[in-house]
């Protein structure tokens, strides 16, 4: 089992398998991520990186094994509790998953609205997080009017706005040029410095020197090793 350096585990995977019919996407993975870890999950296409993140976010159910997040067994979580669980995490999706008919403000505010936060707090918090990602001037724009990099920054702002204790990001910089990628990683480092545990799935090894992180290698669904950047 590969474990982090911190004392307090926030994510634990025990012999996790994920199969789609006869195809195995995740094969017997054991992994522990401790509080405030910065983890890159890397590997070639089809290695199981996205599947692993989807399992952690309860978008998929494990076929075998067990996943604990903050001590919660994800296999035993009731359907009605899934929204509450997801609110405690942030997820930056590979395809951003922004609502095109909502403005940038509304996309981000939605996360806070689901938790029933006060409207005055939302009106302060959303511009604040947009300033962090450098998009305060795009607050009333609709996602289709934004560039790929801008959409990704909105997606990060949305994932970060509720101060999640874990942030998952899938192929974070796939659409970004070097400057935008630096900015995005600056944001992640900022969140990490505030205590957020960050897990980034990427196949791009050029990102590893952008943060001091654990690098976990996946290949054909298997965990093949770990190193540090």
């Amino acid at each position, binding site marked *: 089992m590969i474990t982090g350096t911190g004392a307090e585990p926030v994510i634990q995977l025990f012999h996790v398998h994920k199969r789609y019919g006869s195809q195995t996407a995740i094969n017997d993975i054991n992994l522990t991520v401790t509080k405030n870890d910065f983890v890159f999950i890397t590997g070639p296409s089809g290695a199981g990186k996205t599947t692993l993140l989807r399992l952690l976010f309860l978008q998929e159910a494990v076929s075998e094994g067990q996943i604990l997040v903050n001590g919660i067994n994800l296999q035993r979580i009731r359907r009605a509790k899934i*929204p*509450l669980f997801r609110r405690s995490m942030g997820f930056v999706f590979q395809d951003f998953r922004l609502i095109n008919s*909502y403005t940038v403000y509304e996309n981000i505010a*939605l996360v806070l609205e689901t938790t*029933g936060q*006060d409207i005055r707090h939302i009106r302060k918090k959303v511009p604040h997080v947009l300033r962090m990602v450098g998009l305060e001037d795009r607050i009333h724009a609709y996602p289709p009017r934004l560039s790929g990099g801008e959409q990704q920054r909105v997606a990060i702002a949305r994932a970060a706005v509720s101060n999640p204790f874990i942030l998952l990001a899938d192929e974070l910089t796939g659409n970004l040029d070097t400057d935008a990628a630096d900015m995005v990683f600056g944001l992640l480092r900022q969140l990490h410095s505030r205590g957020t545990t960050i897990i980034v799935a990427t196949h791009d090894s050029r990102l590893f020197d952008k943060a001091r992180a654990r690098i976990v290698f996946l290949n054909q669904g298997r965990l093949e090793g770990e190193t540090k950047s």
Partner: protein
Amino acid sequence: MNLTKLSSIFQRVRRNISTSPYLHLAATATIAFSLLVIGVFAMLYVNISALIHSWQQDVRVVAYLKDELSEEWVESLRQSFAKLNGVEEVTYVSKDEAMARLRRQMKHRLSLLEGLRENPLPASFELQLVHGAQTPENLDLLASQLRGFPEVEDLGYGETWFNRFSGFIGFFRLASLIIGGLVIAITVFVCANTIRLTLYAKREEVEIMRLVGATDAFIKTPFYVQNLIEGLLGGLVALVLLFGSFKFLIARIQTPDALLSSCDIRFISFTWCAALLAAGMFVGWFGSYLSLKSFLRS
């Protein structure tokens, strides 16, 4: 519910409607049309019931007496009849008075009565039942009691006519319920499918909401609110159309020379109006409930 939730709900309602206005217009029009049909039935029901009720008020049992009863005997019978259960008023009609009535009714054909050597009409008692007790059962009961008096030769209370109308009212009630139920069911089906179309168009948005931690209630509430509003609007449109049609018809049929000029045609009561609005809202809500239930499970 706090201000944020309310604001969020109404923003999403506004967005839902503005993204597919024709779909929502169709749903509102369907509800309005269905409630209009139900409203027409309600008006027919209310007016026919009122008409039959007023006829029922006039229903009286006539006990025709044998000839040659003394005045004391007649008075004793009056007292006995007045004590019968459910009787409010007893009126004696003597043979002479009966003939006088007949003459008045046949004033244009008096020659038919001229050949009579003696008055063939019997004296009678007219028994008026207490208000609200003019049911076929009570009339039958009173008739059977009157038949027990040997002085009573015959009875008349239009039992065949009365039973026929009571049967008609029962049938009309049943038909109204069945047709109203069918119309409501069809409207619920149409509303549910309208919502399903809206949901289908918004499935990605709903999926994203779930990914950012929205509960089913958070997703569903705007759809419920939106359909309640559509139901209410549909109900209001139906009432306006019904009232407009009512006024138009009244103006046409209540001219002095019209056949129905003496009929007191009434609009449905406030309770009926409130019930129609409530029915519209229920139909909207139930349509959402059905489609959301299956959509969110999938």
